[in-house]
């Protein structure tokens, strides 16, 4: 077998694996965001076609007499026009004065209106802001409430798990007296210090069987130090003070064969 018969397979295999790795590396996330396509729009413009063809004017004819007469007429018309213009000027001046007065009044009125409007707007805005603030504060409160609730739930869970751990530790060393019967229940109160050591334990609700009560207290004393309590006291002292410093536990006799 010649060695060069392996060159091509090696190259092909390496390429194949490289390609595979690249595809897996880039195409691993199968759920890509669907691409949002913008609607395509066409801009339309209204175009009017003007009639651009102009009519041609007929050429003028020259007539001197007519021209002179027309000049005369022109002069008369001009004089007339001048007179009219003067009168018009007079009228115009008056009208202008009138207009100015009116404009002044108008301006004043408008300024007053503007002021009123602004005032109103300001009030509106203030009211809106007020409302917004109120809503925001309500939202914040709700958020805080929820956080508190979550915290409380977390705390409750932590306490529960601690209580379970304590109970398990005690039950592991708990030796039942022969007189114990299924269904007997003893409630004990245990006081801890932050080092996890038990400082006091007493029966708060007896099972009616003194031996059983004693056996529970003995078990508590046998364990003596609870590392879970110590951890909790170090991590969350407030929770320890509130919930764990005195813990009530219920011990139930179960699973005896009799």
């Amino acid at each position, binding site marked *: 077998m010649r060695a060069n018969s392996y060159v091509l397979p090696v190259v092909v*295999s390496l390429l194949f*694996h490289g390609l595979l790795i690249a595809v897996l*590396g880039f195409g691993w*996330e199968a759920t890509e965001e669907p691409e949002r396509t913008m609607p395509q729009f066409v801009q339309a413009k209204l175009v009017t076609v003007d009639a651009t063809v102009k009519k041609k004017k007929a050429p003028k004819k020259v007539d001197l007499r007519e021209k002179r007469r027309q000049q005369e007429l022109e002069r008369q018309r001009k004089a007339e026009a001048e007179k009219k213009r003067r009168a018009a000027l007079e009228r115009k001046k008056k009208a202008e004065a009138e207009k100015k007065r009116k404009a002044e009044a108008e301006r004043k009125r408008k300024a007053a209106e503007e002021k009123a409007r602004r005032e109103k707007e300001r009030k509106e805005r203030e009211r809106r802001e007020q409302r917004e603030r109120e809503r925001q504060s309500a939202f914040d409160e709700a958020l805080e409430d929820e956080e508190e609730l979550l915290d409380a739930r977390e705390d409750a869970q932590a306490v529960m798990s601690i209580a379970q751990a304590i109970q398990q530790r005690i039950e592991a060393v708990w030796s039942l007296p022969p007189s114990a019967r299924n269904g007997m229940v003893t409630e004990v109160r245990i006081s801890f210090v932050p080092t996890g050591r038990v400082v006091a334990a007493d029966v708060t609700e007896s099972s009616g069987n003194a031996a059983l009560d004693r056996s529970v207290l003995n078990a508590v004393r046998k364990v003596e130090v609870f590392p879970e309590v110590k951890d909790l006291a170090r991590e969350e002292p407030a929770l320890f003070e509130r919930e764990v410093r005195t813990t009530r536990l219920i011990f139930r006799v179960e699973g005896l064969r009799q």
Partner: protein
Amino acid sequence: MNAGEQLSLWGLIQNASLLVQLVMLLLLLASVISWVMIIQRGFYLSRARKALIKFERRFWSGADVNQLFREGNARAERGGTDGVESLFRAGFTEFTRLRQQGRSSPEAVMEGTERAMRVAMSREQEKAEMNLPFLASVGSVSPYIGLFGTVWGIMNSFRSLATMHQATIATVAPGISEALVATAMGLFAAIPAVMAYNRYSAKAEWLLSSYETFAEEFSSILHRKVHSS
């Protein structure tokens, strides 16, 4: 590192423990090598099959055996012959050599020729079945290796779960996911290897039985020749 990056394929592989990474590397290597074998075997077997068909056609077209032998001389000097032709050359060389000595009986000549062909045949068998055991062992072992990596990864992820206060699915899911990559790689290496092994061993078997048939036929021709003269 955000969550998306952490759950990408690279993130998973990078976060895996060293042993799992080693397992993955081993499986990748096994996959690469088994693909090398698959491609090389595929080329070799298909070439051998083509050569067989071509040679048989030439052989049965009524060409003179001496001429056929001379035709192959150049190729044999260049780099050795493959497959059925080397069988033919081994048998024929031995046959002519024994006959030139002249002292051997026809039975001895035939026996020597057949022996030479058997030797060439076992060499061909070796060539045809080369690397197939490797494919077989990759196919049967790499799922176990991948499973080992997965079990180890899941063990670790559960161990880290045990130290948590609150166990949620989110604390174990990444670990299990990264552990499962190893199984996926094991299967990825194993499946082509098993398929290729089955296919190529069938092909090799067919090739060898064809060689055997040819050897029988050729020795019967030589038998006729040795007894006619």
